[in-house]
């Protein structure tokens, strides 16, 4: 019976034996890091939309307030998406023949709503409410980034649990006066930490222990 293993196999076997812990740890680390890659989180990836809507043009260029389209952001868990009629308040008057808006016109004429692609998607087991964050003085920019500089909207932050908790633990950095919540340009002036402490008391932010409790977000 011929020998299956040649003498060189010993060397190969020893090499593999030495390398295997590194390979194992390395591949586990790679899988772990994959969770935070932009491929998995979609951070910074512009999402294709049926109508190439530019926040940059409408917010920076024209100065339209967030709440003109996202009407329920102060009252409801869901920020609200503009109805076709909302688009047509202006676009029945301007850019009425623009090919880029053909789908909006077809939506109204054909009685078919526009199917936008969701950019910020939370898991169903997360209870998230826009209105409470607005009322406590967390600005839009804290989670959504500089939307006023996005020609096509992308996700600025991972929206992963660790990221949520970072802010719930150190919420001073996100607090601003109620008048500046929708101002994406606002910068804290004077002594930021003293100002934040005052805002936290004014808004009645609960203790870190309370707002990092499991049931705050998982009900």
């Amino acid at each position, binding site marked *: 019976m011929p020998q299956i293993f040649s003498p060189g196999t010993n060397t190969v076997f020893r090499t593999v034996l030495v390398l295997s812990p590194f390979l194992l740890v390395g591949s586990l680390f790679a899988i772990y890091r994959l969770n935070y890659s932009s491929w998995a989180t979609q951070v910074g990836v512009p999402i294709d939309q049926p109508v190439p809507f530019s926040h940059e043009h409408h917010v920076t260029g024209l100065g339209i307030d967030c709440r003109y389209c996202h009407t329920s952001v102060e009252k*409801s868990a869901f920020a609200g*998406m503009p*109805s*076709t*009629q909302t688009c047509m308040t202006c676009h029945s008057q301007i850019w009425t023949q623009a090919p880029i808006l053909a789908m909006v016109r077809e939506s109204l004429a054909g009685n*078919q709503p526009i199917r936008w*692609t969701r950019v910020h998607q939370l*898991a169903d087991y997360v209870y998230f409410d826009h209105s409470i964050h607005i009322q406590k003085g967390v600005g839009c920019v804290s989670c959504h980034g500089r939307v006023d500089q996005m020609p096509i909207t992308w996700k600025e932050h991972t929206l992963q649990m660790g990221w949520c908790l970072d802010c719930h633990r150190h919420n001073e950095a996100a607090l601003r006066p109620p008048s500046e919540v929708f101002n994406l340009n606002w910068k804290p002036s004077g002594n930021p930490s003293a100002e934040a402490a005052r805002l936290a008391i004014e808004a009645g932010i609960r203790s870190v222990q309370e707002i990092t409790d499991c049931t705050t977000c998982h009900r």
Partner: protein
Amino acid sequence: MMRHTPNIHGIARSQWGSLEELTGAPEFRNWLDREFSEAASEFPDPLARREFMKLMGASLALMGLSACHRPPQQKIVPYLEQPEFLVSGRPLFFATAMPFNGSATGILVESNEGRPTKVEGNSTHPLSLGATSIFEQASILTLYDPDRSKTILHDGQIETWDNLVSAWLTEQERHLYSGGRRFGFSSIQIFHQRWHGKSGNCRSVIRPRSGISGNRSLARRSLKVTEPSSINPLSRSITLVLRM
């Protein structure tokens, strides 16, 4: 294999354990050379055991990979025209009234994106003062019931609206002599079957629900339809009930 062992005379002598060993048959030689008999170490199948383990191991490992993708892309479908008073994501309450047994109770109906989900009492209604009975609470299922049939069914088979109307007209002919007695057409079948009471004069009642397409106005005209509130739920005179 033959063993040569010296005997007491010191002369080697052939010893054998079986006739096959003595004759040296090739099958026996083969059997003797193998450490294990055939099929003991390898399954005599084209898909050998090791092959099987390889394939199963690979498919198990690849099964884990199926978790390595992003959740499916969701769509947001806003309204064409935002309904008045509606705040997306919050329920809207409508004040309405439920006709029942000749009177009506004022109620509030909770509605989520157009789907009624819960009946509450209307505290400003002078009769109920905010209370509701089991009938009002259960009436939510006449508005929105995911278990209700979405098509017309006849003996479990899907039927067309036209066939329903023609069957209805035939049945109506048969019941003409009684002036429409013993002939009900309702969405609350259980009521008529279970509740006992005085025999009422129940006329033909048709109540198409919104999910069923068809020429309802025609059906209404030709069938002398009365309002569903005039059904006496305690009537036991109805022999034929069509459920919608």
